[in-house]
């Protein structure tokens, strides 16, 4: 099924010869939140810039709602809102005038009630007539989001929207994103904060060196690739891992006080029962047992490292 945004075999080679996108394919479904994860220079911003028309593509095809971004650029761009990575705002203008400018630029007629609503949602209403230059960094980021929402887009690109933003504001933004999703807005998010993707995304796409490594439902990805760890604290420190426990590939803590067992949550036999029995048989006594689920960050780092090999 073709998504609301369809990226087909897109290549982007910059003038200097650097290939930022190497035949990228990505289908984004309407109404979803998809997080684009990748290290610096992976091609996240290039992909977004190309879809939004800021960068031209070298080859391939991109459609939004079935329309080509080149030939139908007016209709396509009117549907898209973009929050850039860098804070780029006219410093001497007021918040409301900046937002009004964005709405007009995207061809929408004046609607002060709607703009007020956007400002209220983003807790910017009381700063409506303040000059942008007087706002804090976090507030400026909100203004960028307000500008991107000013023309009522159906697809919203958020390029690292919470970079350098404090925890409280970040959670506020997550709530805003959740509200937009409820309104039916499709959201494409790039982020360095894996916890951000984990908290709000429906699907995860991992990009590295201009190639999409995987696109998968977040929960399914975590279930498929997630590993769990059991940390067993010992009553008496062990100098080495007993021979009997070798099949479990246990990690011994530096001070010998704990053993860590890693297992796949999806495998038929986790080996936990056998391990516990063998621990007893090896004469080791347990003080405490803790389990730990691997995070999306662990999965992401694993994928990127594997790709680099």
């Amino acid at each position, binding site marked *: 099924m073709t998504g609301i945004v369809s990226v087909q075999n897109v290549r982007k080679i*910059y*003038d200097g010869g650097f290939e930022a996108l190497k035949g990228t394919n990505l289908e984004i479904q309407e109404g979803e939140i998809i997080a684009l994860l990748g290290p610096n220079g992976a091609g996240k911003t290039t992909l977004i*810039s190309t879809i*939004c*028309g*800021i*960068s*031209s593509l070298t080859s391939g095809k991109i459609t939004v709602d079935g329309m080509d971004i080149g030939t139908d*650029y*007016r*209709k*396509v*761009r*009117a549907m*898209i809102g*973009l929050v*850039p990575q*860098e804070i*780029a*705002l*006219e*410093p*001497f*203008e007021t918040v409301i*005038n900046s937002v*009004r*400018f*964005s*709405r*007009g*630029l*995207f*061809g*929408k*007629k004046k609607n002060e009630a709607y703009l007020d609503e956007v400002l209220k949602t983003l807790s910017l209403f009381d700063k409506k007539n303040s000059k942008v230059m007087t706002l804090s960094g976090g507030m400026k980021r909100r203004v960028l989001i307000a*500008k991107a929402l000013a023309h009522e887009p159906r697809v919203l690109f958020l390029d690292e929207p919470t970079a350098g933003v404090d925890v409280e504001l970040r959670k506020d933004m997550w709530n805003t994103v959740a509200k937009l999703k409820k309104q039916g807005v499709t959201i494409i998010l790039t982020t360095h904060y894996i916890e951000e993707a984990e908290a709000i995304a429906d699907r995860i796409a991992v990009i590295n060196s201009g190639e999409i490594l995987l696109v998968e439902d977040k929960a399914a990805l975590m279930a498929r690739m997630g590993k769990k760890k059991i940390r067993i604290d010992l009553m008496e420190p062990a100098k080495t891992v007993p021979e009997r426990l070798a099949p479990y590939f246990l990690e011994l803590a530096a001070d010998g006080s704990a053993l860590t067992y890693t297992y796949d949550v999806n495998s038929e036999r986790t080996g936990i029962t056998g391990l516990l029995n063998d621990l007893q048989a090896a004469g080791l006594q347990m003080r405490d047992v803790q389990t730990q689920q691997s995070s999306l960050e662990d999965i992401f780092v694993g994928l990127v490292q594997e790709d680099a090999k």
Partner: protein
Amino acid sequence: MNFQAVGAIYTFEMARFFRTLKQSFLSPVLSTSLYFVVFGTAIGSRMEAVDGVEYGAFIVPGLIMLSVMTQSIANASFGIYFPKFIGTIYELLSAPVNFLEIVVGYVGAAATKSLFIGLVILGTAYLFVDLDIQHPIAMMCFLLLTCLSFSLLGFIIGIWAGNFEQLNLVPMLVVTPLVFLGGSFYSISMLPPIWQTVTMFNPVVYLISGFRWAFFGQADVAIGVSLGAISLFTLGCMAFIWWIFKTGWRIRS
């Protein structure tokens, strides 16, 4: 045509002008007054009338052109360079607008500002000299065309410039000398014959000459030639800007 977008760009750019309205108004009034004190009264009183026009009045069209050309370039180049400099150009590039709409918005605002300045200088001139404009409609048309064409040139400079030094380079090194040597303060006929020929390669000569014709009914070159030259210059700038947006030169990676 995305009229909403044109209106948004125009309004946003004009807001910059209104924020500094006092400076925008006072600066041309002061500089024009100084020109009149120095050239009109101190030096002008010792000079003969040029083609029957008192020297103080003779320099009025040149003075207006000098300010209008430099202001048009400055306003339009800054208008498009500033979004590039602070990064807000992303919004323009991702908006559902074509090159014409962007140009009409930015260049229209820049031309409006310089038209205002031109009229302020004209008003100031009335305080110092007796002026009887023979072809007021033609005068307004020339003024408008100059505002427009030099704002287009300024827009190109703004897109080309990679830093603030480059932004000032062309106006300083090219435009100001061309304007000064384009007959702002003298008639071409006052030059030696060889320099009269050289001067004919200066496009500004045609603008000032045409503008002066609108004021006093006499010119260094035929009015039709002046009109043709300014129209050609405007079309050339438009074609270049069309190419810029087609290729993304200096604006799109």
